[in-house]
């Protein structure tokens, strides 16, 4: 193993008293470094939570937590160390353990105490802790699938059009500009919302329209000034010479010659363009020859001299790095023409975006969910602005003392701002406490910044490195050692990418220069990097064949992992398909949408049909699917059955006898099988859980037998699990939801244990494989067309950031509009990112890289033609051409295009073998006698309850009062309220209660006697458990029971608050009531019989009447046998 050349930098990075920005290229072992520093910091803090480590993904956070834990555990048990590097970690871990001991942190048992998080979860934590400051109010659930909410916000914005809202005219203008195509504008506004962290700081919710305009004008002016200023700086040595040449040329073209060299202000733009046109040709390349068209006619003497002078200057200028691009950019440097379509569009947008953002907030509010971006924004809000910062320590109960951030190159502006806020006051603090400073370490690799399309901005990494945060300067450390790849691979990468990356870092242009890596592992192979070129009509097929053969070789021989890394999913699909044919197992997760699986498509058809009888397509498709496989002729019979103005719904047709007269025998057999399954499925709708309902129908139809291969059963399982998820989320049987989710799920991944991996380059970030193949380098990603809206951030020379935004004005491409300027900028950034993407791919490899591409040859020159500048191949084209192995085109029998051949109908051969599934039949539906109204009114029930309660209370009093006291009345009123009676209902009810109690207290011989405390063994609300006549356990409650002292009889009394119907005599009423309560009283009587031998008498006491009705037929004489002991 080679020496670790950057050991000093690594050692320095652990120093807990300093802050760092570490550039850590691929394979440099940065995670270990982060862990070492983390461990080191642990011994300097009071609580482990005070060290905040931020990672890019949840996976990375989990990995870091576990590696820290592992380091601590190994130190605990004293595992031996293998190398000095581990020894460093070990020593630091031991110190950390000591701190753990001192602070009784129990780190080893409480992994949650490691404050190692993604930015998302950190922000979510802040919003949870500060519900008011973050304006969340409480934890909102964060959703990944928020596009429907964005769409809703746009629709709400559209609604303002009809409401004379101030932004209505802006929305209208925007719509009109895009041909009143609401769908299209909706799409682009949705895209804006998804990226709103980039613009909301400038044109977000609280911004006034006029301010927005002024702001944008200033931003453009500053941009132009900066660009021209830089240009002027670069050209400074040539100013005089160029001015002379410009004057010469103007004179020859009969134009008024300039009197001075152009200055860096927008007014001089035309002069700058003149200069640009002199130096560059239209395509933006350096001018190689000059003619009289440029004002340099051929001739002798002065003419000749001037011409030569110009060519001389041109030759020198070509060596100035970055000059050419800047000169070219002059063409599109925006000029603000207030009336121009393009500027008007910008203004409309800047006025409507705040309102759009506000609509989104309302939508979030309505649904109680938010997106990640909102969480981040709210977290920032909660931290307060610089004038009124939030005292975070108060909320957390601790100060954040140290921060570590990984993958900083993929930082978006939100994270940057967050760090800024978290480190407020650190500079001063550190000055005051130099012994225990707060520190920051950011780690990243600009060369691996590949998330520009998601808003990551590598410029922020460069900026942080340059400026630090809040007075905390970051020392720049550069790691150079590559522990991953063999020297051969590293050398190739060095040589190839050295010249491909820009020569200088540039914050504004997101340019990162290459930094040279040093291999730690020795070279292992002769030719670690291979390049293969294919050409001709069948180049693609040949390429796929070659790659698959290579993979087969790797599989057959030896060990080690191999990854095929594609720029997009579609680049990998042909390879997966071929590997499948060759039966080479591979691990290719998340490449094909689940919706593409035939089994899933059929399940979806089944769902659609069951969801909607009117979905004729789904119903016909159901009949055509493999489980039924009706022939066309029979389908036609179904379609044409029954004569009517329109066709009958398929389901009703299937049940009509008429149909079966026309069907073929085969059709009949098939439908006879299908029908009972569907009938049962319809019968069971909403009676089974969603999944079971569909699954049973699917099994009944013979679903699994229709699967094309056994792996697709897994797809069916995934689909059905999605239905479970629908139940969990409570969305029910919602086809739109289902289809949307299907798009986000992927088909079964092949063999997860295979050594062969296929994935996109973006997914491969952070991973490592023995060998790497990057195919189809020449292919372009699917273009997203002409971007309708463009925006970008601009940092001026003072480091102030501003925001620029433009909409496609549909004008010419070289017009000096903001749109064109931004378009060029974006293109350039994308090109830079393409290079970095290839770098990321190549650096995944330990020992071998295989690059392949289709190449065409120029018929005239015989040279290979350069690929598109948007391809991955372009940046390394020079190297590729020099080193490639060329495969001769060969005539391959082109496999027949599947779309050209006539697909056959696939179907189960006959009635499926398995019996038709049987649904539950054991629980026949009951008829419900009553519908929505309940038998007695709510008020009556409540009155009954409270009268019972009042009587119980009274019966417990030693002395029965003559009337209810006011305290009693208040209490009973309250009891009625508790039952749910309020307002006038309460008054009426209370009146009824009081009158019943009044009746009772007045009724000496019934009411007062019943409640009297003069009885023996009296109970009110007597609760008993008994075994009823059916042998079941039943709890009963007897309103009143006692032994009459005089007669020795035990009374069992049930209170009733019913009253006679109008015109009903008291006797008739009493007879009716006792008939209906006889069974109940009997149950009471028989239960009480078990408890005592006394003679038993049952009665109903009518509270409203003050009338005691003895149910004589239930009288039971005393007994002296078979009596249980008294219940305890």
């Amino acid at each position, binding site marked *: 193993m080679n020496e670790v050349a950057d050991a000093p930098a690594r050692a320095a990075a652990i120093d807990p008293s300093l802050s760092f920005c570490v550039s850590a290229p691929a394979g440099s072992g940065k995670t270990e470094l982060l862990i070492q520093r983390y461990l080191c910091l642990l011994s300097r803090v009071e609580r482990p939570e005070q060290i905040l480590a931020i990672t890019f993904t949840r996976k990375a956070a989990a990995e870091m937590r576990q590696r820290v834990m592992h380091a601590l555990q190994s130190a605990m048990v004293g595992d031996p160390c293998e190398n000095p590097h581990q020894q460093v970690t070990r020593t630091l871990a031991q110190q950390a353990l000591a701190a753990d001991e001192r602070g009784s942190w129990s780190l080893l048992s409480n992994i*949650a105490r490691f404050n190692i998080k993604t930015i998302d979860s950190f922000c979510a934590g802040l919003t949870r802790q500060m519900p008011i400051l973050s304006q969340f109010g409480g934890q909102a659930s964060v959703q990944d699938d928020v596009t429907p909410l964005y769409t809703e916000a746009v629709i709400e914005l559209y609604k303002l059009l009809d409401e004379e809202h101030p932004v209505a005219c802006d929305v*209208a203008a925007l719509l009109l500009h895009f041909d009143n195509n609401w769908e299209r504008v909706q799409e682009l506004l949705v895209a804006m919302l998804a990226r709103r962290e980039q613009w909301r700081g400038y044109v977000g919710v609280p911004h006034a329209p006029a301010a927005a305009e002024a702001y944008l004008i200033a931003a453009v002016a500053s941009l132009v000034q900066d660009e021209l200023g830089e240009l002027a700086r670069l050209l400074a040595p040539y100013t005089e010479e160029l001015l002379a040449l410009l004057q010469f040329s103007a004179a020859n073209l009969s134009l008024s010659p300039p009197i001075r060299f152009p200055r860096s202000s927008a007014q001089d733009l035309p002069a700058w363009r003149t200069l640009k046109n002199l130096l560059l040709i239209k395509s933006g390349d350096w001018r190689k020859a000059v003619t009289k068209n440029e004002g340099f006619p051929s001739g002798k003497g002065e003419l000749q001299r001037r011409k030569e002078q110009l060519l001389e200057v041109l030759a020198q200028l070509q060596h100035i790095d970055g000059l050419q691009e800047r000169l070219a950019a002059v063409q599109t440097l925006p000029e603000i023409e207030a009336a121009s379509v393009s500027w008007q569009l910008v203004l409309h947008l800047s006025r409507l975006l705040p309102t759009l953002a506000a609509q989104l*907030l309302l939508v979030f509010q309505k649904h109680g969910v938010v997106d990640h971006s909102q969480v981040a924004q709210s977290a920032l809000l909660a931290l307060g602005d610089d004038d009124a910062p939030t005292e975070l320590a108060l*909320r957390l109960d601790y100060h954040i003392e140290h921060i570590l951030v990984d993958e900083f190159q993929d930082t978006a502006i939100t994270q940057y701002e967050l760090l800024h806020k978290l480190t407020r006051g650190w500079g001063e603090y550190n000055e005051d406490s130099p012994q225990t400073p707060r520190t920051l370490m950011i780690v990243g690799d600009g060369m691996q910044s590949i998330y520009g399309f998601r808003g990551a901005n590598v410029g922020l990494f460069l900026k942080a490195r340059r400026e630090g945060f809040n007075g905390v300067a970051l020392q720049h450390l550069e790691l150079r050692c590559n522990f991953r790849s063999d020297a051969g691979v590293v050398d190739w990468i060095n040589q190839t990418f050295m010249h491909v990356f820009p020569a200088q870092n540039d914050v504004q242009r997101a340019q990162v220069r290459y930094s040279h890596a040093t291999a730690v592992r020795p070279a292992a192979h002769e030719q670690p990097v291979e390049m293969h070129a294919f050409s001709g009509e069948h180049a693609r097929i040949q390429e796929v064949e070659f790659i698959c053969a290579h993979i087969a070789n790797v599989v057959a021989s030896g060990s080690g992992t191999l990854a095929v890394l594609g720029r997009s999913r579609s680049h990998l699909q042909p390879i997966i398909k071929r590997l499948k044919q060759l039966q080479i197992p591979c691990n290719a997760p998340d490449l094909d949408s689940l919706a593409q699986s035939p089994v899933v498509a059929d399940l979806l058809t089944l769902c659609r049909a069951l969801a909607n009888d009117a979905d004729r397509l789904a119903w016909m498709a159901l009949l055509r699917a493999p489980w039924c496989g009706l022939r066309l002729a029979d389908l036609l019979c179904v379609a044409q059955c029954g004569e009517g103005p329109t066709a009958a719904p398929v389901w009703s047709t299937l049940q009509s006898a008429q149909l079966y007269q026309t069907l073929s025998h085969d059709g009949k057999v098939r439908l006879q099988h299908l029908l009972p399954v569907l009938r049962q499925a319809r019968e069971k709708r909403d009676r089974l859980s969603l999944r079971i309902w569909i*699954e049973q129908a699917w099994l009944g139809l013979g679903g699994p037998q229709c699967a094309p291969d056994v792996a697709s059963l897994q797809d069916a399982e995934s689909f059905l699990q999605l239905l479970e998820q629908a139940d969990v989320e409570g969305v029910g049987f919602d086809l739109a939801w289902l289809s949307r989710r299907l798009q986000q799920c992927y088909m079964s991944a092949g063999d997860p244990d295979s050594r062969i991996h296929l994935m996109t380059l973006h997914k491969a970030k952070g991973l490592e494989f023995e060998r790497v193949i990057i195919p189809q380098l020449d292919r372009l990603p699917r273009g997203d067309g002409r971007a309708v809206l463009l925006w970008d951030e601009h940092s001026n020379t003072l480091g102030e950031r501003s925001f620029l935004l433009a909409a496609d004005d549909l004008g010419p491409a070289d017009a000096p509009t903001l749109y064109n300027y931004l378009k060029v900028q974006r293109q350039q950034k994308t090109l830079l990112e393409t290079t970095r993407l290839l770098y990321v791919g190549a650096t995944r490899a330990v020992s071998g890289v295989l690059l392949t591409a289709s190449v065409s040859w120029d018929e005239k020159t015989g040279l290979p033609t350069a690929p598109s500048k948007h391809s991955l191949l372009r940046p390394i084209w020079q190297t590729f051409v020099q080193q490639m192995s060329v495969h001769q085109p060969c005539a391959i029998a082109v496999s027949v295009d599947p779309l050209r051949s006539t697909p056959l109908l696939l179907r189960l051969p006959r009635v499926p073998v398995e019996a038709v599934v049987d649904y539950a039949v054991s629980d026949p539906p009951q008829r419900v006698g009553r519908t929505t109204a309940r038998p007695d009114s709510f008020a009556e029930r409540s009155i009954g309850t409270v009268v019972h309660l009042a009587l119980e209370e009274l019966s417990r009093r030693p002395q029965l009062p003559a009337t209810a006291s006011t305290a009693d009345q208040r209490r009973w009123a309250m009891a009625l309220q508790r039952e749910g009676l309020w307002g006038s209902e309460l008054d009426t009810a209370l009146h009824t209660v009081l009158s019943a109690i009044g009746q009772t207290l007045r009724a000496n011989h019934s009411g007062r006697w019943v409640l009297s405390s003069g009885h023996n063994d009296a109970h009110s609300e007597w609760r008993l458990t008994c075994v009823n006549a059916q042998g079941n356990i039943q709890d009963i409650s007897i309103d009143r029971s006692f032994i009459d002292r005089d007669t020795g009889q035990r009374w069992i009394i049930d209170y009733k608050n019913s009253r006679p119907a109008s015109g009903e005599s008291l006797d008739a009423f009493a007879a009716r009531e006792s008939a209906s309560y006889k069974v109940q009283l009997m149950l009471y009587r028989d239960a009480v019989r078990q408890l005592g031998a006394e003679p038993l008498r049952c009665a109903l006491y009518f509270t409203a009447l003050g009338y005691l009705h003895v149910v004589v037929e239930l009288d039971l004489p005393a007994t002296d046998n078979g009596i249980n002991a008294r219940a*305890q």
Partner: protein
Amino acid sequence: MAPGLYNITPLEPLIEAGFTLLTPNYRLARRIKTEWNARRIAAGDRVWEPLSVQPLESWLLERWELAVSLDLVPPVTPLAPAQALELWRQVISQQATHSPDYHLLRPSAAAELANQARDTLRRWQVNMQSPGIRQLFDLDRDCGTFLHWLTLFEQRLAASGQCTVVDCLAQLPALAGQLPTVRVALLEFGELAPLVRAALHAISAQVLEIKTQSPPGERRLHSFSDERAELQTVAAWAAGLHRANPTTTIGIVLSDMGHDRVALEYLLRREFDCLGTSYNSLPVNFSTGISLAQAPLVRDALAVLAMGLQHTTVPGAVTLLRSRFLDLPDAQGALAQHFVAQLYRAGREILAVSDLRDIAANMSLGDHQGLTLGRHLLALDRMKVLRRRALPSIWLARFSEVLSMWGWPGTQGLDSLEFQQLELWHRTLDALRAYDAVCPPVDFSTALHLLRECCTQQISQPQTADSPVQVLGPLEAAGLTFEHLWLCGMQGANWPAATRANPFIPVSLQSQLHMPHASPEREWAFGEALLQQYARCSRILHASYCRHVDGIVDLPSALLADFIPQVLPEPPTVAAQWTRSYSKSTLEKVADHQAPRLHQAHQATIKGGSGVLEDQSQCPFRAFARHRLGVAPLGSFSVALSAADRGSLLHAALFAVWGEIGDSAALLALSDSDREQTVERAVHAALSGVPQRRRRAIGTAFWQLEAQRLNTVLHEWLAVECQRSAFSVVQREQDITLQLAQLTLVLRIDRIDQLPDGSRVIIDYKSGIGTVQDWLGARPAKPQLLLYSIAEPDTAAALAFAQVRPRECRYVGLGRIAAANGIHTDISRVVKGTMHAPDWAALNARWSENLERIATTFVAGDAQVDPLAPATCTRCGLQPLCRVEWSADVSQAQGAAQ
């Protein structure tokens, strides 16, 4: 007999001694009572006084009620939690309207937190009047805001003579010695809040704490690759144990009940073989169910009530139609199919209920006039009382009336679960009444919202017999005893839980007073105690975790350190039954692309004019499916007008323009302002052809903009027309009938121009891109104009697409006369490589042959799945039926398998 879910033998002396038994939850109280009853029955008793056992909180509340009835404390009405929350919501929203700088995204979440904070503060007996405490709250904005809310909340309570449950408990400590005292035993309690402890000691003569003590049994730890494998193994494990001994008690604890219940229930059903016939005999109890609002019966009731709102959605209307609980007898008929298709065709997902009502009520088909749905909606609309504000209790009656009008809950009969849900629905309605205490009269939508909330909060759980297998949440299982207990989801990340301090109480105060969830130490102690309790209460304790959660590596909970790891095999991911069934499978392949010949009798029913031939040409199967099976995909929704509808508008406007101008001379003679006005009139004419309902649905702004757009593009187009040499428009949107291979096609030609020499130019307006490539080849993609040249042979001097598109207005065509820029006459060059036709006449002849042949194949029933190009399928939508995407793959894979 196997031991029950709780061993009450140790409690017997206490019961004898007359202790009241208090439990942490209802579940344990019920369980102990059941055990007690079983003992009494076993002892031969028929009647006995119920065992005095109940949850601590409810017992304390009963004591408070007793104090009220003894006039020891003044009577007040404790608000139920739902109403207390509502009061918080009102306080918060009232505050929000006063201070416009904060609008909370989730005010109700804030209400919950505030409610919880107040509850905790009372239980921990924090004196909120103390200036020191108030200062602490005022230090930060969150707690300060809460303090402010709290003051308002207390004021509201005081003003209306109400209190919350915790306020009742807070009165108890002062009652020491005044209530009849009892002796109590606390069963299986962990920590008690200071208030509860104080209350308990004040009003009881003696307080004993009892915990089940049994020797800790075996503890095993299992790990799985993912959650599914974990749940699957647990289900199989439970089923295996149960089969071996049906009375053995088995507990399954789900860490995340809400998330895993559905999956586990499915898997248990699969393992216990209770998916089909024996669906109702799963011997498992679940401690939770679904939200009542999700129960189909209630879901549909709420959906009906939602028809009283302004807007609904098309899928919402379709859901109503398939409800089993409503009186909609014609929901499966042809008219309903027609109705749904029309809703989809209209292309708007959200529609006004009034529009839905009109369509449903007025739709007709044969003698079937109007859907029942429409009649119900009309009746609903006539209930004017729904527009008046009222107290929630009054709304209940109104809601019930609406529902019975719709025939809810239906005539098909309910099964027992639905019957239980109906009962619960009635109880929930009653609960809504309690909002009278805190709400002013509310309008329809607020009342409905409250009802929906109540139903969402209400859990509907099937009442089933006690089963030996129990699925419980972590807290619910505490205290119950099991032979076998399995703890799922014991992930390192969740056990112990991360701290969740209440944000409305200063953190320092929380940790100082040891409030719940405030510190990692407390969470650890809590988790540890819980786990010890599980261990005490089970003979064999299993715990499991997943090595990966969402693809991210995770560790087991550190609480499981003394569990013994065991390796269980990973279960297969697909049900064995499926794999078995698949292995028996042999699919047959049938060549079936020939439908019966189009019968003479049916030819008249073929509609669609040139569309039939266009479809047949682009893909024969498509033509068969669309025109003979009558199948069309349900349209997709758009926010405004679909592209096709906008195209029609453009056609209408152009129709009007030329109706007025007539020929090129008139066009050129028009002054600018005349032209201006002509265009304006044409646009107006086009727009006024749109039905009122459509216009209303999209909103006036759209139509104004559309008018402007049409105006612009018409001017652009007229500029193109001005370039042409003389012509006059002789026909507009005229139908011509054409007989082709026994097919009678009715063609509508957008426009025919006549040139001075009498020759004609046939024009088709296109708002998309037109290209002559669409006419070439054996199967022309757009044969409409070609058909004309067959219908009227020799009259057409040129065919042209008039491409009327903003910024891209032009003619694109072929002919023998270059009647406009863009109409090419060099036929042989244009068609080179695709067709053999040296001149215009020859080309016409080819076209005639091609179209004749295409028509013949249609009539003959050719229904090959044979799209002209891959792009043909993109906008077709018939993929589920033609199966173009799968057939090829399927045949390959099957071939390989055999």
